[in-house]
């Protein structure tokens, strides 16, 4: 097996080991702010019918103008966006019914909500380097300033499904901009085991545990069918990879991969052909793991999942690929 794929196959345990501590620390700090459970969202009028669109922030969101097309079409179903896609939505005047945030990283994630404290380009080149939201790559201070204003303007209309693992800085920003927070625990481990972290956490804070599937996009999809009960779900921007022609240094895990793989950097990357577009997309071990997990979860899900991303590597028998327009107009 190729090195990249071999590492991908072992990332479930590695992720748990790496992030559980940070997630639990954040939960302690967030606990005083926990008022509503994510289950409360199920009884709210969040769009019509049983259809939903999950908006992730992969490069196809921009390449395919997916948000603009969604906004123009006047889709009446539910719209659930990941935190990193919030800016792209609001710039098109599209206000998601729910925004999902999970990542415990202490500094980075607040930028997806506009960081009022950012006055100069950050030493961390995460936002300039990768292309989840190109506006940050072009002029991150100006982009951030605009996003702060947008989020402040729309905050009172936004509901956030916040994992208790979310960074306290994100929680503070959401509350400060008037967003309403609906909480859930990440499922950290097998809750049937007597020493389960998930079980202990649930006992302490009373919140349900959601199986997050490794990333915020998959977590948003889980929430859409398992909590909101939507039965036909379209995905946009769910690439789990990098568009053809993307340089290694523009990929999300590049600094880590370069340091780890050195001369063998090329072996870390995996190439996957998208059968719909005929393009060959680039992916890395983490995204490849997300893809495998998504397929496993999709097989068990009580919903139909339709990939309207029009790119990326999430192509398989479990998930039908159609255009966004086909999904919206059926």
């Amino acid at each position, binding site marked *: 097996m190729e090195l990249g794929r071999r590492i991908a196959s072992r990332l*479930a345990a590695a992720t748990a080991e790496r992030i559980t501590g940070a997630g639990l620390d954040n939960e302690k700090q967030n606990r005083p702010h926990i008022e509503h459970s994510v289950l409360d969202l199920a009884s709210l009028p969040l769009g019509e019918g049983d259809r939903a669109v999950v908006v992730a922030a992969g490069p196809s969101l921009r390449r395919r103008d997916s948000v603009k097309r969604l906004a123009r079409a006047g889709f009446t179903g539910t719209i659930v966006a990941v935190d990193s896609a919030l800016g792209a939505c609001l710039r098109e005047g599209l206000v998601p019914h729910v925004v999902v945030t999970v990542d415990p990283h202490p500094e980075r994630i607040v930028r997806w909500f506009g960081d009022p404290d950012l006055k100069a380009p950050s030493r961390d080149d995460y936002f300039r380097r990768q292309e989840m939201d190109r506006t940050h790559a072009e002029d991150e201070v100006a982009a951030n300033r605009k996003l702060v204003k947008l989020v402040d303007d729309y905050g009172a209309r936004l509901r956030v499904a916040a994992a208790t693992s979310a960074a306290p800085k994100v929680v503070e920003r959401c509350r400060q901009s008037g967003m309403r927070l609906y909480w859930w625990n990440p499922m950290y481990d097998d809750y049937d085991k007597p020493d389960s972290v998930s079980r202990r956490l649930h006992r302490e804070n009373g919140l349900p545990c959601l199986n997050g599937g490794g990333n915020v996009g998959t977590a948003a999809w889980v929430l859409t069918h398992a909590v909101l009960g939507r039965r036909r779900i379209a995905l946009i921007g769910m690439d789990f990879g990098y568009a053809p022609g993307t340089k290694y240094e523009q990929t999300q895990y590049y600094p880590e991969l370069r340091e780890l793989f050195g001369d063998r950097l090329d072996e870390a990357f995996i190439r996957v052909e998208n059968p719909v577009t005929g393009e060959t997309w680039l992916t890395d071990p983490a995204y490849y793991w997300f893809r495998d997990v998504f397929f496993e979860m999709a097989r068990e899900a009580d919903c139909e999942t339709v990939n309207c991303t029009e790119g990326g590597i999430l192509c398989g028998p479990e998930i039908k690929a159609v255009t966004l327009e086909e999904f919206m107009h059926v």
Partner: protein
Amino acid sequence: MNEYLKGNYKVDAKIEESEDAAPTSTDEFEKKALSRLGGSICFVSKKGFIWKGDGADGTGTKDR
């Protein structure tokens, strides 16, 4: 402590460590890679999508 555990005899057989016991450079490399890569949230295989606790009404110990 090593002073007390030191053997006071010699053995004729030459003992070689098996190759499996020593971590190979590939093992070390993968271990290091795994400590740096991964997702922002866990995935737990075969445990469904949502767990609301063991209570009959599915809400667990506190009603949130």
